[in-house]
């Protein structure tokens, strides 16, 4: 396996509140290959959004800090770069799109101008060249009549169009990695299907690597190559999509899959995971998931289970994983 | 943490500094007002002719005025009146304005339009001119001042509350209350208003500063408190003639006004921060 494009190791984000300092992201590690679409899955409090913002050092509040963690882009450490050098990475090597495009597009600037601004900031060049590139980008993201539409303001675009415009903006400087923070959660399901298709096409055409943050396992199953499941700020499980969905190891992953409403008949009770996701100031000791876990053993409340590799590319952090007995039996009989 | 201490911590919790200092200043003045008979060294209207225009000294820490009255005692006694001005001058407009704003915002339509036009009419007149006109008709004195404040000052509260009610009317819990068959009045006063009041209360603290200054200004013009009653505004007015030879007569009451106004201002900031309202 070639060296990963992005390697995140032990990323930690802390927040200072009235009740003390708490970890929102606690030692998250994952890798991203070139051209890979990684799904970062989690519910509220999982830390998925914060981890990605920390990657780009875009933490929204001064109460948040990154006490430790390593982020290597093409093998080179970027976390300790001074701000002016880091700015060359933001936008140029790693782009980001968000859930609500309306709040991330400047409402008083024309769409075309915003994209052209980014092009000129990172690549220099003439105004004309930037405009041409802008129209090219708008075409690539599937906006009809790009020349005309580039003169429009964000509020004149519909939800799906705005999201496409935001993708164009993020791609303006040809980044290697696109971080997509729940970009389709607020869109209608038919529009979501279009955007997911667009992202797949962009990956195929440009070799773009994508980190797709979502809580929707269905979206992940359709779009992503590999899945990383987060809970309570930590990685539970990480592996290739097919294997993870067919035979999850971590009880949380299995629980999450069981909760999907699509699996079951009308009138049948839905499966749930008892209890509630923990809040940042009331994290359980040891494994974050143990109070809600059906597989709990004594060790779970004492120490955080380490990430164990079940296959070279499939890891899970659990003392008593799902299907362990079955797997053992299968190995013995082989 | 033991349960009782945890409860207290939640009560005080994260108290912003402005709130503490502002509250402290207010409490200080309240203590002065309540304890005036005990704290003030002299009778405020007692004239000691032999000690006229005496500069600050150990005997008269704030000096005396041209009638030989002790400035310190007058400042202390006047706290009662000025606190009363700040309080009553805010509370009447607050009540009237809040009620008007709630009704206008909730019912909308014609009711709202009528109120808004009425507000526009009141706002068309310069504030002080209107106040003076009303006081001139009713005759000088604090009672007239309060009536004038009530008639003129309610508009700010009405607009503030109305804006809040318009927003809250759209919230789900307002629609839930409607769907549960609650009467208009119940929805207005039990559900919408308590949530709208937070902004008004913070505003009222800032308003107290202005009311205080207004009261002082009105008294300064001779239309409020009448001599020989001690009130900071009058004292500043009376001391104005002597400013070059006896600066202490106008300065100390002036400082008292500034300090109380400052206290209210900090209280407004602190409350706003604590309750999550941007003033």
């Amino acid at each position, binding site marked *: 396996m070639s060296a990963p494009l992005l390697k995140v190791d032990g990323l930690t984000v802390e927040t200072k509140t009235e009740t003390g300092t708490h970890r929102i992201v606690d030692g998250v590690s994952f890798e991203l290959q070139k051209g890979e679409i990684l799904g970062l899955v989690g519910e509220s409090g999982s830390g998925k959004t914060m981890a990605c913002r920390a990657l780009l050092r875009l933490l929204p509040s001064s109460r948040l800090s990154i006490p430790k963690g390593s982020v290597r882009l093409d093998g080179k450490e970027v976390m300790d770069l001074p701000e002016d050098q880091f700015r060359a990475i933001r936008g140029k090597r790693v782009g980001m799109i968000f859930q609500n495009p309306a709040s991330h597009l400047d409402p008083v600037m024309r769409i075309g101008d915003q994209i052209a601004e980014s092009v000129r900031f990172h690549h220099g060049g003439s105004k004309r060249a930037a405009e041409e590139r802008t129209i090219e980008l708008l075409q690539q993201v599937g906006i009809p009549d790009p020349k005309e539409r580039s003169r429009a303001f964000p509020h004149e675009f519909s939800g799906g*169009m705005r999201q496409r415009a935001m993708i164009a903006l993020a791609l303006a400087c040809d980044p290697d990695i696109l971080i997509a923070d729940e970009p389709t959660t607020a869109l209608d399901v038919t529009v979501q299907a279009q955007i997911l298709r667009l992202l797949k096409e962009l990956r195929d055409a440009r070799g773009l690597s994508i980190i797709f943050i979502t809580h*929707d396992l269905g979206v992940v199953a359709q779009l992503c190559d590999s899945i990383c499941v987060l809970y309570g700020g930590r990685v539970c499980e990480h592996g290739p999509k097919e294997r993870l969905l067919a035979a999850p190891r971590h009880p949380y992953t299995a629980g999450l899959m069981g909760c999907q409403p699509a699996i079951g008949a009308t009138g049948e009770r839905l499966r749930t995971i008892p209890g509630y996701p923990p809040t940042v100031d009331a994290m359980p000791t040891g494994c974050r998931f143990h109070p809600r876990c059906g597989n709990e053993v004594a060790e779970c409340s004492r120490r955080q289970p380490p990430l164990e590799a079940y296959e070279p590319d499939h890891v899970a952090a659990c003392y008593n994983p799902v299907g362990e007995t079955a797997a053992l039996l299968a190995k013995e009989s082989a | 943490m033991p349960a009782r201490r945890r409860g207290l911590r939640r009560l005080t919790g994260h108290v912003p500094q402005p709130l503490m200092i502002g509250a402290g200043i207010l409490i200080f003045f309240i203590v002065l007002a309540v304890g005036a008979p005990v704290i003030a060294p002299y009778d405020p209207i007692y004239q000691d002719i032999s000690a006229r225009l005496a500069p600050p000294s150990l005997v008269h820490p704030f000096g005396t005025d041209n009638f030989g009255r002790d400035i310190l005692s007058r400042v202390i006694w006047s706290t009662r009146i000025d606190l009363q001005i700040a309080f009553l001058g805010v509370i009447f407009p607050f009540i009237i304005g809040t009620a008007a704003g709630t009704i206008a915002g909730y019912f909308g339509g014609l009711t709202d339009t009528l109120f808004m036009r009425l507000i526009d009419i009141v706002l068309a007149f310069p504030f002080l001119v209107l106040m003076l006109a009303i006081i001139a008709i009713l005759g000088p004195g604090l009672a007239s001042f309060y009536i004038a404040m009530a008639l003129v000052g309610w508009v700010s509260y009405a607009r503030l509350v109305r804006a809040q009610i318009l927003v809250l009317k759209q919230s789900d819990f307002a629609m839930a209350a409607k769907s549960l068959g609650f009467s208009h009045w119940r929805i207005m006063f039990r559900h919408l208003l308590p949530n709208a009041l937070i902004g008004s209360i913070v505003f009222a603290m800032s308003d107290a500063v202005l009311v205080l200054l207004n009261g002082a200004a009105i008294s300064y013009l001779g239309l409020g408190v009448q001599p020989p009653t001690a009130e900071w505004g009058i004292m500043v007015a009376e001391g104005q003639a002597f400013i070059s030879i006896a600066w202490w007569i106008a300065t100390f009451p002036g400082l008292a006004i500034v300090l109380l106004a400052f206290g209210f201002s900090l209280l407004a900031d602190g409350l706003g921060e604590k309750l999550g309202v941007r003033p």
Partner: protein
Amino acid sequence: MSEVTPLIETDDVVLHFPVSGGGALGLTRRAVKALNGVSLTVRPGETIGLVGESGSGKSTLGRALLGLETVTGGHIVFDGAAVTGGKRQELSKIRRETAMVFQDPLNALNPRLTAGEAIAEVLRVHKKVPKEKIADRVAELLQMVGLDPALSARRPQALSGGQCQRVGIARALAVEPKLIVADECVAALDVSIQGQIINLFLDLKEKMNLTLIFIAHDLAIVRRLCDRVAVMYLGRIVEEGPTEAVFSAPRHPYTAALIESIPEIDPTVSLPNAPMQGEPPSPLNLPPGCSFHPRCPYAEPQCSRDPPPTLRRRDDHGWACILDPGQLPPPQTATRLQNA
């Protein structure tokens, strides 16, 4: 099919919200055409799902059914009482016998009242139980929705999203309603929590023979919870019928496209290679004829010329399209789930 009196019946309901003018001088009258002729029948004890995307009008319909919005045309009748243009007693009956549950659990509760106070208020206003019994009844209702009665002393900010939503349901149940309209009430909850609320509704349906109108955009949940489903597009019902029939053999192209757009958790079932283009147009500017024709892969010239198709019915399954049943290929997902 037995002739049961419907609990709630709407007939050609129209709701247009006037908005400030468009055109050069801002003088042209414009309106958000939220509902454009909706006719729906709900029988007692039924759970019906109202699904649609943005601009479909499903939330507006939910509110109109409870008399919380004034309609511009058409009739709505609830258990014999007129909701539209009804007299005071009729409206009062509706308030006493219906309740609504909202999407945003925090926003749906008065932040200044504790859970117990919010529920107790309903009991008091409707005089459901004598004063001494109120506390007991509040505890009973909280237990009914799976909450510890001790939570009645907490304000919404001290409760989780799922707990707030349950309090909202307990408040609705305090009225002892015949009909509950649930407006997107699980959309704001985590997936692992959503099931708890859906299961609660399934339990209440069994225990209380509750009639439920469940407004949602998540078709998978609707499929689990509802007996019938009505699909809305730009203020009209385009398809309506028993859930299984609609999902396995949709008769309207929009329903089919909607079902195909649901991302399946089975990675072998992929999203359509050519997802439906465009987005729902704005309710300010409805396309002529059938509102769906600009996006419809089966559109004929008559679809834009003729007035919008009315709902045709066969086997209790209605659809508003010129296509006949069987002309539409069944969605990919249907076959997979049948084999499951």
